[in-house]
């Protein structure tokens, strides 16, 4: 409905502006451009260089670069470049909009300044000028490439993983070129400066309508917003999308040329470009097949079939191929915990298997994929203990700017596993048999585990504190932070949801314990490991063993300022 309204608005606007344009009538008296106009390449090149310099210095284009650059670095700072590269094109939208207006004004410059007659008496006609204006878009396109490249280099330097797809990165600059060509075509069809502003708004509407679309038309949106799910689940075929955009760009360029120079070659080129765009659009539409949906569902439900594993001792790290470089980052906190536990514990095999986060599954737009998933969907829950005894890092864990969270979550998980905290949350009910979970079971599955009062919880907490080298340098007070639950404290350095919730007393005891020499505590824990990890051993008993004083309220107070999120 929005698309239809936007189209009607655009048509109405064109009709109104044309009727109200006395200059448009005057232009009819100018001799039509010859069909065999002589446009030498050297002339077009010289004019394109002149126009390119003007466009590159245009304040609108510069403002667009600043806006897009700021947006890209402030909002779109990526952590998985092979996925976040899709957001680059969206962040370049301000630049594309500004380029549209600037190129439109550049074409209309002569008309605006009353130079049409003077220029009309020159041997270089409007066709060559249109081509030169089109080529002059190389400046803004180059700016867009630089912004995209700078974003990639910066994100990579900040610890983002993977490499962006070149085709996806090029989508943004091509869209900037398309926007500039829209401005040129608009100037040739409707020589009114205000029209370009309306066109930017109309494209914004169109973009919003198409990208909000949950169906097959979504890939036709020029700018694709970043999706939460990984690329394997994303069904936009990027190759066809760029062909689609190039087809549109060609159609726009030849459409602008055809305004003054008509002939079989121009019509053929225009037809070819339009056919290319339509074919690529259709190919995108057709690419979303049930087989592809089924593969995406399998990718989520059976990660073992798609992951590569690495073994370090008895610890197995498995990650999807794109995330393989995360394994090295997972190792440090896990190794830190294992170094502090007795040998028999280290002799137990441990599996870390990457899973899609639960919120990514619930927010997935392709309903066909969601429908193909089993129940319950295996996911990386926000808890240290999982449904199968393994540790399940999600896709964002240990990416850049998440380092403290990465260390804490993995250390907590490993520590919880070491002391025997994992609780099997495998659902007893079988949904295939129509055996739905009860409300209590469902809440239990989603809720935090209450480990308060258990000595092993304090041990796990102490192991976590000792094996988080990334945050070990921080003052003790900054390691604990009050969670939303009020009565419990967590080591998560931000408020986005505690991976493990610990009671105030347990946290206080762990901090008392951490004030002791680590080697001494470690040796003592190893000697009494069976006792201190027995679920029946209470924190009070642990305090007696280590002669710990009851923690004061101040020990659990939130830190004054600590936010690494």
């Amino acid at each position, binding site marked *: 409905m929005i698309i239809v309204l936007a189209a009607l608005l655009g048509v109405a606007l064109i009709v109104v502006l044309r009727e109200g344009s006395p200059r448009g009538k005057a232009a009819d*008296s*100018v*001799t039509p451009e*010859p*069909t*065999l*106009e*002589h446009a*030498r390449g*050297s*002339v077009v*090149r*010289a*004019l394109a260089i*002149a126009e390119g310099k003007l466009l590159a210095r245009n304040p609108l284009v510069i403002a667009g670069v600043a806006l897009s650059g700021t947006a890209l670095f402030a909002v779109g700072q990526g952590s998985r470049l092979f996925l976040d590269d899709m957001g680059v094109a969206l962040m370049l939208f301000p630049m594309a909009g500004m380029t549209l207006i600037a190129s439109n004004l550049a074409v209309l*410059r*002569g008309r605006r*300044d*009353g*130079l*049409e*007659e*003077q*220029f*009309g*008496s*020159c*041997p*270089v*006609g409007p066709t060559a*000028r249109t081509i030169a204006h089109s080529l002059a878009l190389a400046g803004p396109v180059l700016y867009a490439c630089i912004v995209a490249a700078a974003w990639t280099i910066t994100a990579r330097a900040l610890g983002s993983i993977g490499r962006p797809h070149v085709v996806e990165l090029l989508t943004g600059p091509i869209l900037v070129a398309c926007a500039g060509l829209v401005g040129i075509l608009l100037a040739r069809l409707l020589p009114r400066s205000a029209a370009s502003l309306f066109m930017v708004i109309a494209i914004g509407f169109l973009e919003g309508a198409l990208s909000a679309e949950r169906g097959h038309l979504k890939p036709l949106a020029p700018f694709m917003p970043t999706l939460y799910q990984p690329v394997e689940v994303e069904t936009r075929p990027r190759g066809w999308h760029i062909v689609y955009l190039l087809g549109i760009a060609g159609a726009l360029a030849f459409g602008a040329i055809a305004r003054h120079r008509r002939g079989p070659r121009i019509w053929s080129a225009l037809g070819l470009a339009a056919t290319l765009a339509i074919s690529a659009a259709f190919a995108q539409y057709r690419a979303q097949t049930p087989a592809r949906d089924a593969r995406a569902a399998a990718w989520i439900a059976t990660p073992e079939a798609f992951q590569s594993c690495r073994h370090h001792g008895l610890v197995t790290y498995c990650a999807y191929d794109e995330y393989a470089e995360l394994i090295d980052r997972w190792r440090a906190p896990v190794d830190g915990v294992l170094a502090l536990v007795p040998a028999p514990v280290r002799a137990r095999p441990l599996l870390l298997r990457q899973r899609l986060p639960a919120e990514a599954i619930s927010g997935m737009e392709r309903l066909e994929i969601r429908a193909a998933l089993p129940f319950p969907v295996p996911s990386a829950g926000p808890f240290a203990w999982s449904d199968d005894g393994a540790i399940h890092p999600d896709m964002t864990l240990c990416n850049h700017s998440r380092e403290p969270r990465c260390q804490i979550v993995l250390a907590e998980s490993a520590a919880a596993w070491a002391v025997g905290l994992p609780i099997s949350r495998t659902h007893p009910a079988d949904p295939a048999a129509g055996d739905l979970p009860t409300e209590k079971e469902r809440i239990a599955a989603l809720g935090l585990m209450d480990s308060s009062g258990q000595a092993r919880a304090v041990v796990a907490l102490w192991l976590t504190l000792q094996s988080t080298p990334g945050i070990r340098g921080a003052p003790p007070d900054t390691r604990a932070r009050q969670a939303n639950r009020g009565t419990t404290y967590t080591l998560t350095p931000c408020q986005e949801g505690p991976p493990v919730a610990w009671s105030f007393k347990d946290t206080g005891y762990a901090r008392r314990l951490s004030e002791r020499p680590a080697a001494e505590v470690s040796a003592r824990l190893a000697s009494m490991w069976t006792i201190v990890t027995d679920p029946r051993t209470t924190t009070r008993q642990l305090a007696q063993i280590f002669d710990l004083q009851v923690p004061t309220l101040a020990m659990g107070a939130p830190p004054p300022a600590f936010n690494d999120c």
Partner: protein
Amino acid sequence: MQALGGVSFEAETGITGLLGPNGAGKTTLLRMMATVMSPDSGSLRLLGHDPTDPLARTVIRRSLGYMPQEPGFHRSFSAFAFIDYVAILKEMTDRRARHAEVIRVLDLVGLGDQARKRIRALSGGMRRRLALAQTLLGDPELLVLDEPTAGLDPEQRLRFRELISDIAVRQTVILSTHQTEDVATLCNRVIVMDEGIILFEGTPSELAEIARGRVWAAHERDARATLSWRTGDGMHRHIGVAPPGAHLIDPTIEDAYLLLVGHRVVAENVA
């Protein structure tokens, strides 16, 4: 409405002036000569080519410099940048040669020292000279200037005349003007037009000769005269029928012009 009808003339090296009242068809004729307008019917040949033929039109444009009645400018450009831009539109692609040509034409119109100045900062007279400079790019065979001296003060007009007369030694200049003085001092040929037709074609002196024997000086105004006005010495200058007691005086181009198009002037005055 027909702006031009049966107009036929040839112009050679030198300056040809188009004289005529408003609406005479001067600008229409010059726009056709500048190839920015094509005739509805009839034929037009410029520099030996037919401008209605697309390829021939491009050939003509390569040998043409055109200054419209109200020349436009990119005011944010410097004088140099603007002329340089027009030079590209005139197919001057070699950067060095083009820049040298831009400097040459700016020097020619006396704007060499203003080259880096923004056009918006130039005076009206300087802008007129800048408009002339762009027509001189590439030393075109044919210069079409539509009222080039309009809006200039006497000193600027003199400088303009000096400049155009220098150019006309090698090139064909066709200019339209309301100023008979310009025609008298500049042109070696003059065409008087009115209502789309040519009333006279010849040299300025031949034009003045038309009025010989029809210009009188008298003490009193006479209603029978085509035009009559009081001059600075207190006498009345009559064109047309001799009033009683008048004596013949030497005619000027202006007298002849008024004699040719005087009925329009009278009608406009009445209106």
